[in-house]
C-alpha cells in the first residue's frame, strides 16, 4: 500500500471515530453507588494538610535549633578571653574602606 493510501486510510479511520462518538449512558443508580463509597470519606482540605505537615515539622525544627544553640554555647569563647581577631572592627574597616579611600584622595 502506498504512503498516500496509508494517509487516506488514517484520515478515513479518524473520520470514522469522529462520526461515531461513544455513548454517554450512565448505568442505573450509579450515583447512589458513588455516594455509598463516599460516605465516611473526608474531603481533603489543603490548608489542613499543610497545617498538619507544619505541625509535624515543628518538633524536629526545635530539636535542631536546641542542638545548634548548645553547640554554639559550648564552642563560644569564654568571656574573660579577648579574641585575637576583632571581627566587628574588621567588618567596619571593610565596609568603610571605600569611604576612607575617597577621603584620602580628596585631601
Amino acid at each position: 500500500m502506498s504512503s498516500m493510501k496509508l494517509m487516506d486510510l488514517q484520515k478515513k479511520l479518524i473520520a470514522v471515530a469522529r462520526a461515531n462518538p461513544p455513548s454517554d449512558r450512565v448505568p442505573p443508580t450509579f450515583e447512589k453507588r458513588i455516594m455509598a463509597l463516599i460516605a465516611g470519606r473526608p474531603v481533603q482540605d489543603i490548608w489542613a494538610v499543610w497545617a498538619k505537615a507544619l505541625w509535624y515539622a515543628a518538633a524536629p525544627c526545635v530539636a535542631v535549633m536546641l542542638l545548634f544553640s548548645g553547640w554554639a554555647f559550648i564552642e563560644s569563647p569564654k568571656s574573660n578571653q579577648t579574641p585575637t581577631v576583632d571581627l566587628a572592627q574588621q567588618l567596619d574597616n571593610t565596609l568603610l574602606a571605600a569611604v576612607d579611600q575617597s577621603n584620602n584622595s580628596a585631601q
Partner: protein
Amino acid sequence: MERTEAELIAAVLKGDAASFEPLIEKYSPRVFATARRYARRESEIEDIVQEVWLKAYQKLGSFRGEAPFEHWLMRLAVRTCYDFLRSHQRNRESAFSDLSEPEDDWLDRFISQPRAVREDAEAAQQLVQRVLQHLSPPARLVITLLEIEDRSVKEISKLTGWSVPLVKVRAFRARAEMRKILAKIAKDKYL
C-alpha cells in the same frame, strides 16, 4: 429552589456529602463518554468513572472556582484515563493477523473504492478501536483529543498538564506511530 454548583460545592466542603450527588448526576454522562474513548469493557469504564468521582470528592478542596467545575472535572477524568492506559499498556495487542472478516472486507473495499466505504460501518469502528489499542498511551491520548475530539493544542495542554511544545511533539510522534501501525496492517494483509 435549585442550588447552583458553587453552592453545592461549598456545602460539600462544609461536610454535607449529600450535596455531591447532584453534581454526579449532572456530569456522569460526560465522564462516561470520556472513559468509553479509552476503555472497552464496561467494568473497566465503570472503574474509571468511579475513580474520577472519588478523586473529585477528595480533592474538592483544591477546586478554586476560577474555572468552571466541569473543566476541573474533565482534567481529572482525562488524567485518570491516561493513568488507566499506562497501567494497561501491557495488554496492547501485538498482531493484526486476527482481523475479523468484516474488518478485512471493509479494508478491501477501502483499497478498491476509498470514497465508497461507509464511516458508520461496525467493521470500521472495530478497526479504529483495534488501531487505537495498538498506540502507546501518550499517542492514544493525543490522537483522541487532537484528531478525534478536535481540541486545540492549548486545550490539550490544560487537560493533560503537558506543556504546549510537548503536546506538539507527542502529536507528531503519535501520527507517525499510527501510520506505522497502518503500514503493519497493510503488510500483514497484502504481503
